């Protein structure tokens, strides 16, 4: 007997798999690029968490004309970024700090923006983006638009003042916002139990007066279903919601972290809950896809990443002197006179 398809057609069910494969292939490509010396700065994997980002973003209204829902992803939610139209090549350009990247080399990795497509990149200081998304969705509410916003954060980020202040503000103002808590059980080397006394974020939600649901974050359909239901309520004036994704960070915090503080037995147990493997079996078992179709998806996503990365490699880094640009909308920052041909500070 087949499982319920949650209203998804065969194409949609395969789309989800495609996004999962794309996320993983992109990150694996990054690892390769880093070994080759092409990546500037740190590299962060979402191994084991791909389904959370994909399932959630797929449940939202994605448009390219600035009228859709808004996403704020995290470094471990690249799948959501791609679903909202973030280009693969831009992802590589960002990690490589190329002058052709959306931020022209000024900012790192997934920290980029496209308000037409509906995504706003995070900043590093944790918690801030809840405040930002509260304001974005407040504007939807006060203008009577039926748009909603979704903001991702890890479990550890919930300890910050910004997380609390932003969420409480959103709750009180009944902002049409969904907070996704990526509970991967670790915040760098700190277990979730050292960031919060509650064992589930479903215990925190009531403190803010908002509906909260916990889902298996390795199950792409379960996440899709939960976010779709939450989105329906939020869009119809139900106020702010929170959804906790439960899964496990199977790699270190960043690639430079060997994660020796985590019991390897636990990691191995979570390998059995790999979101791609799990969903692949279901696609086959339910005959939502054939083995051939899946192999094509796997090959295509691998190839797309290879091609995009190769193209990005060939592109130039920014000119150093561009560092003075864009600080203000109108006022130009002066170049240091010591970089100019000027013999004299008074002439620069």
């Amino acid at each position, binding site marked *: 007997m087949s499982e319920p398809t949650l209203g998804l057609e065969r194409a949609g069910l395969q789309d989800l798999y495609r996004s999962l494969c794309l996320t993983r292939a992109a990150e694996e490509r990054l690892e390769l690029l880093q070994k080759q010396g092409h990546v500037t700065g740190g590299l962060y994997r979402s191994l084991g968490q791909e389904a959370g980002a994909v399932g959630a973003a797929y449940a939202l209204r994605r448009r390219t004309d600035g009228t859709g829902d808004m996403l704020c992803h995290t470094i471990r939610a690249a799948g959501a970024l791609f679903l909202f139209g973030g280009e693969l090549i831009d992802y590589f350009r960002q990690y490589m*700090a190329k002058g052709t990247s959306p931020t022209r080399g000024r900012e790192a990795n997934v*920290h980029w923006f496209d308000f037409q497509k509906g995504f706003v990149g995070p900043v590093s200081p944790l918690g801030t983006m809840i405040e930002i998304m509260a304001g974005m969705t407040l504007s939807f509410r006060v203008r009577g638009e039926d748009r909603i916003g979704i903001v991702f954060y890890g479990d550890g980020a919930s300890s*910050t*003042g910004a997380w609390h202040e932003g969420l409480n503000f959103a709750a009180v103002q009944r902002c049409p916002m969904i907070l996704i808590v990526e509970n991967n059980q670790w*915040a760098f080397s700190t277990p979730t139990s050292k960031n919060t006394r509650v064992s589930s974020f479903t215990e925190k939600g009531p403190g803010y007066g908002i509906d909260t649901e916990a889902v298996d974050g390795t199950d792409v359909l379960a996440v899709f279903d939960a976010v779709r239901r939450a989105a329906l309520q939020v869009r119809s004036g139900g106020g702010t919601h929170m959804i906790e994704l439960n899964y496990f960070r199977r790699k270190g915090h960043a690639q430079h972290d060997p994660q020796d503080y985590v019991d390897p037995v636990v990691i191995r147990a979570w390998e059995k809950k790999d979101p791609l493997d799990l969903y692949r079996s279901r696609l086959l078992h339910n005959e939502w896809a054939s083995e051939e179709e899946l192999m094509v998806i796997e090959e295509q996503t691998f190839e797309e990443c290879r091609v995009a990365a190769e193209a990005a490699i060939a592109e130039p880094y*920014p000119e*150093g002197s561009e*560092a003075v640009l864009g*600080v203000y909308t109108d006022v130009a920052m002066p170049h240091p006179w010591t970089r100019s041909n000027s013999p004299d*500070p008074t002439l620069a």
Partner: protein
Amino acid sequence: MDPETPEHLLKTKRGEPVTMLEAISEALFEEMIRDESVFLMGEDIGVYGGAFKVTRDFLSFFGENRVIDTPIAEGGFTGAAAGAAHMGLRPVVEIQFMDFISPAYDVITNYIATSNYRGAGPQPLVIRGPVGGGNRGGPFHSQNVEMAFFHTPGLKIVYPSTARDAKGLLKASIRDDNPVIFEEHKGLYRAPSLREVLPDDDYVVPLGEARIVREGTDITIVTYGSMVHKSVEAAETMETEDGVSVEIVDLRTLLPLDEDAIVESVKKTNKLLVVHEDTRTGGIAGEIAIRVSEKAFEWLDGPILRVTAIDAPVPYSGSLEDYFLPQTDDVLKAARYLAAY
């Protein structure tokens, strides 16, 4: 049975050279041995030993009451440090990257810095962590934070440039009864050129005293942190190629500023160049220039110049960041201009 002192914290005892990072670890370790009221708080400092491993093996040695892995709450744990300081403890908090000190800005400036003045008593605590650019860290893992706090009376700000100073200054900071913001340039942490054998005694480097890195007669460069080393490079080139003698003053403590050392050097050389890695507008060069104007105007034989980062967020890409940061060539060009003035 007491746990053994971790091997890597005994380098100075064994007469081996240490990096600046190791010097900082030794200072923390020795202060915690010396004074039971000293304890540490911060993110990932225990089990992991800190993002940069400054407190590696401290947890197993001192236990969970003295090495506390905190929630990600810079405002919360810095405020808690203030409370503990009132009760007679001497907290040393680590901010994982000093860029993330901002949530603690409120409690530092409104509470901690004003405490003694308000009669609530001294605040003997240290807030330390990595700062500075050059590591392709982008806008949020590269900032220098001194000038966000320089304007707040009641705080002290320390920014070492060598292993020896880092150890002695951190010890002095921990023993100081005032709140100290202690900046550690991450580019200097493991720099091989900074490895040195430290005195095997309980030395401290007093706060508020600059150090003459290099004596000279023609120009004074006042600087601190990573720029001390770029300034030395420039000075050496000036000496061999131009026959110009550059004196370098390493501030070491930014607040309170060692005005006497600056003024004395300027009176000797009659020319002043200030070099800092921090951005330009509102950088410490402005404060130094006005003090020299007040105290040594008659001695100046040229304009006071500065070499600094440009006024922008710290960019990520290597080419942009290199342009953003002041480089040895900038120091050289400015110093040559002054020498010829």
